[in-house]
């Protein structure tokens, strides 16, 4: 039978010819069916194929892919009118299951993830040795050098030729890095270089949390770090001439890993001259200034490439060009050694022409509608290309909260001929932008235990409410915010609120908001045992119904960080038992407030830089039967990064409340300082200003006191704050930002008594914690430096005490 059969050995030697397949046979089968082999090979009797050619190669590939053969060979025999094909397969036992013994459960689990052994696939020699390599590599990474693995094979299903593998693992002794030695280093000490070799540390008893096991990658990275350290100090020629890693006896017969690294430092280079060529947009002086080096400076390699290519604050040479449209800009550098220790720098610049943005697209918005994304993009078709616009876009897309900030990737497709560029952003929708808050806690003495629930839908869509399939599970995608909240206690406090915001009304950059709220507080003053019987036993009741409509707009002038907002609010108060402050009964306010704001902060939770300024005017219209006042407020808060992640924030704010006439003056909405939103909820008749260190509530606020010992609230206030903040943890699951603060502020009964430096102070520390499902939680612990006088409400606050405050929501 063998006669006339040709093995396909070197297809390139043969002339491809077409044959018809007359017959297909399969040899070497154990459990697989012939029909399966033939059908997966893709070869068919009667078909015409080329030999040598695609079809045979494909057939072999397909059969291997089925994962059940360890060897596949296809032979053919010429017969009259075509060929007979013989498929020879070698079938290996297939994997039924596998086990790992001798090691901890956690390691077994990790190994299973890495091993990638699939049930039903053939256990070939390659599979076995790959598994061995994986196990050895896994333990090597953990610092075990002498791992022994024994593979036990057992056929556990004769009929189907199935095998069970058992890996018996003995990881052996863990060997730590004991010594890192340098030779040839003259300029810097061993100690200094070890510090730079930051990936692996020598094991010492006081290094509890550091890695001191050896891995190849860490070791190489460490050497590179050391060399980079030299290069950044002008040693351009530095080399690691020799390095060795070995295991040796260390102390008390313990083994340890030793590193010996020999370094040749070479000379330290200084810059002698800097020359630019080909630049027409910027002058030599401008470029040298941006480049940041002067003749005589040490040649710092990292600074060199950073200032040329990319620097965080975009002051590098490439940004200089890229930000004004020169996308095709290129710079070629030539560093010439001109003396023992000097270099001349030549730069050849190819400016090319300005590129215009053509198509701007994005993908990955599986929940959020196009318009919501598109309105956030700062790169607009037809505009000049700008790298900083792309960076700003990425930042602002991240701030939406709908996409994971790390997952935003821009892709540029330039067309050099047309001088255009297409930009596409790939987005990654986060699991949920909605959150649900449920909290219980102590809400102050007048309230007692409080239960609060709130749902925020941050990517709501009204339109989807009425569309089929829109409730999946919540109508979403239009970037509208819908919030519903309830707070109740057993002691007569209730609060309900609803708000809806559409940031882009009818597709235009005008925001529209509606909110409704109802607050009710009912308590008896006698239960506090204070007040000298002035009105003991008298019940107090506060009620407020409030409805408002707002319209806002982002402005493009003076710059595009400006926005304005107009709010129309109707308040109906109903009070009882505040003799001396408010008259019993109902009172109405109809106010119009206008705010102009400039906000350039880069992050709503923990800004690194930028500032926020706003000024607002509010008028309670003197409608007959309504109360009247007017109010002016302004606020400024500035953030500045000092070093690394450490940020300093400083701010000041002032407010003034005046009246048009002597009649119907409103005593509602006067200024009270202290606490945060949670502590202030019982004081809903007032205009509450947040302040740490002072607890808020009826007895914990800063307010002028009238001759009858009533807390009447200020008509003027000032507040200053100062915060030092360090975002210690910031990832998608949690952000943790500890801070220290000093707050100072005061309220005054009218303008004549106003003294901007007569303030009550508190200092302390705290932390903000952001969890996507909970929102932002702010905890602060403040030490009061000044106290408040006593009043009908209580004895006032004593100075020199600590005050813990808890809040939900961002202060910026």
């Amino acid at each position: 039978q063998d006669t006339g059969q040709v093995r396909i050995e070197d297809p390139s030697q043969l002339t491809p010819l077409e044959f018809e397949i007359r017959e297909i046979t399969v040899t070497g089968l154990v459990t697989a069916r012939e029909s399966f082999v033939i059908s997966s090979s893709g070869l068919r009797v009667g078909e015409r194929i080329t030999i040598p050619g695609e079809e045979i190669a494909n057939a072999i590939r397909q059969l291997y892919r089925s994962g059940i053969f360890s060897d596949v060979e296809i032979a053919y025999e010429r017969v009259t009118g075509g060929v007979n094909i013989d498929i020879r397969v070698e079938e290996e036992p297939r994997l039924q299951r596998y086990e790992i013994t001798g090691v901890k459960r956690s390691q077994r689990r990790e190994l299973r993830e890495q091993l990638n052994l699939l049930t039903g696939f053939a256990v070939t020699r390659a599979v076995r040795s790959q598994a061995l390599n994986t196990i050895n590599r896994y333990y090597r990474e953990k610092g075990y050098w002498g791992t022994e693995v024994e593979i036990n094979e057992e056929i556990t299903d004769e009929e189907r030729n199935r095998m069970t593998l058992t890996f018996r693992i003995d990881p052996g002794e863990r060997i730590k890095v004991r010594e890192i030695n340098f030779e040839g280093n003259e300029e810097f000490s061993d100690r200094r270089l070890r510090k730079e070799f930051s990936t692996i540390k020598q094991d010492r008893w006081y290094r509890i949390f550091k890695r001191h096991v050896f891995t190849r990658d860490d070791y190489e990275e460490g050497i590179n770090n050391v060399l980079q350290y030299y290069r950044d100090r002008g040693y351009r020629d530095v080399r690691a001439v020799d390095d060795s890693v070995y295991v040796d006896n260390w102390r008390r017969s313990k083994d340890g890993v030793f590193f010996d690294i020999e370094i040749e430092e070479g000379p330290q280079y200084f810059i002698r001259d800097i020359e630019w060529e080909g630049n027409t947009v910027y002058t030599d002086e401008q470029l040298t200034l941006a480049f940041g080096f002067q003749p005589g400076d040490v040649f710092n390699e990292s600074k060199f490439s950073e200032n040329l290519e990319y620097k965080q604050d975009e002051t590098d040479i490439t940004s200089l060009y890229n930000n004004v449209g020169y996308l095709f800009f290129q710079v070629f550098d030539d560093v010439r050694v001109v003396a023992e220790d000097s270099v001349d720098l030549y730069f050849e610049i190819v400016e090319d022409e300005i590129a215009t943005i053509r198509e701007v697209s994005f993908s990955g918005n599986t929940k959020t509608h196009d318009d919501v994304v598109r309105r956030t993009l700062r790169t607009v078709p037809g505009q000049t290309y700008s790298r900083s616009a792309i960076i700003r876009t990425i930042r602002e897309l991240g701030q939406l909260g709908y996409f994971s900030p790390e997952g935003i990737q821009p892709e540029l497709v330039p067309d050099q001929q047309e001088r255009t560029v297409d930009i596409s952003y790939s987005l990654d929708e986060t699991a949920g932008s909605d959150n649900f808050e449920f909290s219980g806690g102590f809400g102050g003495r007048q309230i007692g235990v409080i239960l609060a629930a709130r749902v925020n839908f941050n990517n709501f869509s009204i339109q989807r409410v009425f569309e089929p399939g829109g409730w999946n599970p919540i109508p979403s995608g239009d970037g509208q915010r819908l919030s519903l909240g309830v707070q109740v206690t057993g002691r007569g406090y209730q609060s309900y609120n609803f708000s809806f915001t559409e940031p882009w009304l009818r597709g235009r950059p005008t925001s529209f908001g509606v909110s409704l709220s109802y607050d009710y507080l009912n308590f008896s003053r006698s239960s506090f045992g204070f007040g000298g019987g002035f009105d003991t036993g008298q019940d107090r009741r506060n009620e407020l119904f409030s409805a408002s409509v707002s319209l806002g707009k982002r402005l493009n002038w003076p710059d595009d960080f400006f926005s304005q907002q107009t709010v129309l609010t109707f308040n109906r108060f109903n009070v009882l038992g505040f003799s001396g402050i408010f008259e019993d009964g109902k009172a109405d306010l109809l106010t119009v407030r206008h705010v102009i704001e400039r906000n350039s902060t880069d992050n709503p939770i923990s800004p690194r830089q930028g500032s926020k300024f706003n000024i607002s005017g509010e008028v309670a219209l003197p409608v007959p039967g309504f109360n009247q006042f007017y109010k002016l407020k302004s606020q400024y808060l500035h953030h500045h990064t000092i070093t690394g992640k450490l940020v300093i924030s400083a701010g000041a704010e002032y407010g003034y409340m005046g009246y048009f006439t002597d009649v119907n003056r409103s005593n509602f909405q006067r200024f009270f300082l202290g606490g945060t939103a949670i502590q202030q909820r019982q004081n809903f008749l007032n205009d509450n200003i947040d302040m740490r260190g002072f607890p808020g509530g009826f007895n914990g606020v800063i307010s002028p006191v009238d001759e009858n010992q009533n807390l009447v609230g200020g008509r003027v206030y000032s507040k200053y704050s100062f915060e030092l903040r360090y975002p210690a943890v910031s990832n998608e699951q949690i952000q943790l930002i500890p801070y220290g603060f000093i707050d100072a502020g005061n309220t005054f009964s009218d303008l004549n008594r106003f003294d901007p430096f007569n303030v009550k102070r508190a200092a302390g520390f705290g932390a903000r914690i952001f969890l996507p499902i909970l929102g932002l939680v702010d905890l602060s612990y403040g030490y009061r430096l000044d106290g408040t006088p006593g009043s009908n409400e209580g004895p006032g606050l004593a100075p020199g005490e600590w005050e813990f405050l808890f809040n939900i929501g961002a202060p910026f």
Partner: protein
Amino acid sequence: CRSNDLIRPGDTIEVAFEKAMNQYREGDYPEAAQAFETVVSIGRGTDIGQEAQYYLAESYYNDRRYLLAASEYERYAQFYPNSFRREVVDFKRAECYYFLSPRYRLDQSYTRRAIENLRLFNSRFPDSEYAEKSAQYIIELREKLARKKYEAANFYKRTSRYEAAAIYYDLVIDDYPETEWAERSLAEQMEAYILYAENSVPERQEERFRLALESYNTYMQLFPRGEYRSRMEELFDRAQDGLDGIAGNIRPSTSSTQ
């Protein structure tokens, strides 16, 4: 009793397949899919394994889990490229992506994937009974993609970025000329240019009115009996008035020199 329908360790592959088929016939697709999954894994290399692979995909398809269905159909096509089921498998795989394609306001990756697969299907099986349906799907999906771009253009127009709008209307006209959105785009583009001109400094107005007239001419050539013809005529008059206005402003100064 239902427990008899479930595959148990001792079952032969034939029995297991029959049990899975029973669940499939009863319309219990999630259970069926799980059962076929088992049959596929133990039946690798058998004819039954091949059948099970097909019905696994079918179970997911009928259960409307189109992403899973598409990947199982794909696996079938990969393992059994010459099966008689190849035609239906290829079509259904493409159809899965058609079903996955979301409304135009969201990411259209699946839409593009569907079009790609449908086109591949039509070129591989031009005489298929599904060919017409497939072509119909392609038209429908391309309409969706065209609309997406058209709405992006409208967004730019609405927010007064007329140049960006004009570029995007151009993209619709170039990329989707056969759709109804191309015709609309020309009309909207003409208006965008007019608004652009009207909101420009006097020196730039003329060239922008001329661009508007270019859109008009293109429209008249492509859609001489178009739906928006009367609107185009109105816009034409508006652009012409604009141009006359500029000429009128310039004329007094030229006549004074004479």
